[in-house]
């Protein structure tokens, strides 16, 4: 049952990812990525991480991807790749490297994980429940938690700084030196 479910969701995830990669339309890419994230969420569930399942759906699927779609559609940046590729050699070389990377990564992880027993038997029912996660988050991982707050603060400042200035001071002169 589990294995079957795994293969189905894995297939969905892979298909979503590959479709994201090859879609010429950015909106389609975003939707396929959404599919991929959904499949990932299910995999988290399979791995006994219900909390991450929720987060994946709310944050990634619910917020980040929506933002992506929003930006793509409002900017009208669906199809920027209609112009001919200026560095055409990049694509075959990139694919070659990708294959190489996949080979290396798969070899490493296979060799690394092959000898492992199947996921550690039966876990306690409480494994991975949100409370346990929360407990860890506020004890052992308290410092990273607080740092995260600072990172988010910086992000807020960044968004405001990068997009507010046009309003206060219109560019006085055309960009120089380009």
């Amino acid at each position, binding site marked *: 049952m589990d294995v079957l479910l795994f293969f189905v969701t894995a297939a969905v995830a892979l298909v979503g990812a590959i479709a994201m990669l090859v879609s010429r339309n950015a909106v389609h890419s975003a939707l396929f990525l959404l599919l991929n994230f959904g499949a990932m969420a299910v995999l988290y569930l399979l791995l006994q991480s219900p909390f991450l399942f929720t987060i994946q759906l709310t944050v990634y699927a619910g917020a980040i991807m929506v933002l992506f779609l929003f930006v793509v559609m409002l900017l009208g940046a669906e199809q920027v790749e209609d112009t001919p590729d200026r*560095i055409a050699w*990049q694509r075959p070389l*990139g694919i070659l*490297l*990708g294959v190489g*990377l996949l080979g*290396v*990564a798969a*070899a490493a992880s296979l*060799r690394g994980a092959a000898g492992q027993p199947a996921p550690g038997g039966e876990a306690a029912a409480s494994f991975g429940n949100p409370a346990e996660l929360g407990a860890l988050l506020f004890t052992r991982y308290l410092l990273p938690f607080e740092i995260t707050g600072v990172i988010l603060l910086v992000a807020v400042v960044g968004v405001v700084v990068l997009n507010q200035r046009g309003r206060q001071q219109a560019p006085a002169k055309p960009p120089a030196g380009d």
Partner: protein
Amino acid sequence: MAYLNWLIWLIPLLPLLGFLLNVFVVRRERPAGLLASGMVLGAFVVAVVAVIGLAGLPAESRRIMSTGWQWISTGAFQVPFGIMLDPLTAVMVLLVTGVGALIHIYSIGYMHGDPRVVRYFAYLNLFITMMLFLVMGNNLLILFLGWEGVGLCSFLLIGYWFERRSAAEAAVKAFVVNRIGDAAFILAMLAIFASFGTLNFYDVEIGGVIQPGFLERIPEILGRTVGPSWQPIAVATGISFLLLIGATGKSAQFPLFVWLPDAMAGPTPVSALIHAATMVTAGVYMMARTESLFQESLATQSWVLWIGALTALIAGTAAVAQWDIKRVLAYSTVSQLGFMVAACGMGAYVAAIFHLLTHGLFKALLFLGSGSVIHGTHDTQDMRRMGGLRTAMPTTFWTYLVGAAALAGIVPLAGFWSKDEILAHALSHGNWPQLIILFLTSLLTAFYMGRQVALVFYGEQRDHSYHAHESGRVMTVPLLILAVGAALGGLMNLPFSIPGGHWLSDWLNPVLHEEPGEFNLALALLATAGAVGMGYLGWWVYTRNAARVKVGGKDPAYRYTGDIWDGMEEAWYLDAAYNRFVVAPFRALGGFLARVFDPQGIDGLVMGIGRFFTWVGGGVRGLQSGYVRTYALVFTVGVLLVLGFVLIFTR
């Protein structure tokens, strides 16, 4: 003699003060020249006082070490910022400050009216400072400080007239060639530190703690080897060979001498000071200072000997065929440096230093004399356009004659004694091939000096586009002083067993351990006869054939020697060979692979290599296409390599 401990600091610091004032305060020509000359003269006076004080000490304790502060202090790595005065340093300091002061004074006249003259004197002062650090440092690091410093000043001064393209090119060439030597020198320092744990020359006592000096610990490395087991290299050989490469660059030895003749693009007083009397002798000084290291490696010593002898011969022949009055002297300098290096290779360090000192005097004289000629003929350097100047500039002529005779080795002038000592050593050590080479070279020396004197001062003036005149007092007085030095300098180390005869040998004995060369009367007579004969021959050929010398024409000797003359004129095509065998392939490679070439490239070995590197750099930057995807691609290549390595490695 406690006062010496602080007194010797004044020697380098006075010119440094002059430099700083000239950079930051002085803005006008006259005070700049007076200040610069005054500071160097002051340093000379201090040096004299200090050396007299040093001479008052018993011979075995004639080494004043003075530490300013602990420069580096980290665990085992201790380097004091210290200078010293010992007999070897003393003679070098006297030469540098003495000749330096005269050249500063001379420059006041020579550089008069130059728009950037304040800067000129600042550079000159900085040069003197650095040269003094070079010879006074009590450890390799200070020596290196001076080494780099003089290189820098030389670079700035060669390119001083940067409006002239040749000057800028020559400066770059000198710089790049010297980098090769400098890199070897740094490696030698690393190796010395790794082998001995110190860079001090001698034991230094600082705060009651004695820091060891590597020159007194040579036996520690005897028998030690480095490198692969099938081809081990003795540590002593490795270190001394690296030092030799360093000296080869700085002292313009084969195969790195190509920069020195071009360096004549600088103002003539600079050529006299830096490229004849002082800086180029730094390599010889350094080898003499570390003689005990060199003495432990027979392999290196024979390299030193051969390099010196070959350089002497090649440069000597090249000097014969030059038309430019300064290039003759430049090749002659290379040749004489070859004598000194060869002497080092024979273990005759005192002879090397002796020749260094006398050469410093008479070569400075010759350069300043040629400067006076150039000055008096309105920037004429081609000897074909000169002739008959002895009546127009008598002082210059007579002093030049003294210098030329000294260089040619005419008894009893300075050059005779020092050169003869080197030859005598070659004879008594049984270095026959080198003896023959050096003897031939000394004959050539006499010949080309005779040729030069004839071309410049005898016959008729061949070009009347200028009105020759004698230079002013400020220039001729230094000439006269140097002429006296060139005439009497040999008295320092006469090969006779009279009281004070071996003065220099005795004086240097605490530092350089060498028996005075055996005076060989037959050799001396032969050499003198040869010098006189060849000098006369040179003079005779070119006064007799003066009418055949045409502006822009071939040399009269061309008739007899044919193409060989061309070879000599081009210094045996070494530059051309570099061009063909090193530069051209590099350039072909570069040209083949790079579409666009820097259009304002410069010919020559170094520029070719430089261009090759620039081309590689161009490749580096070509990949920098501006496309972020390409950057990610390169990144991924790196990832693959790293991970691939891990995978293969852990198989």
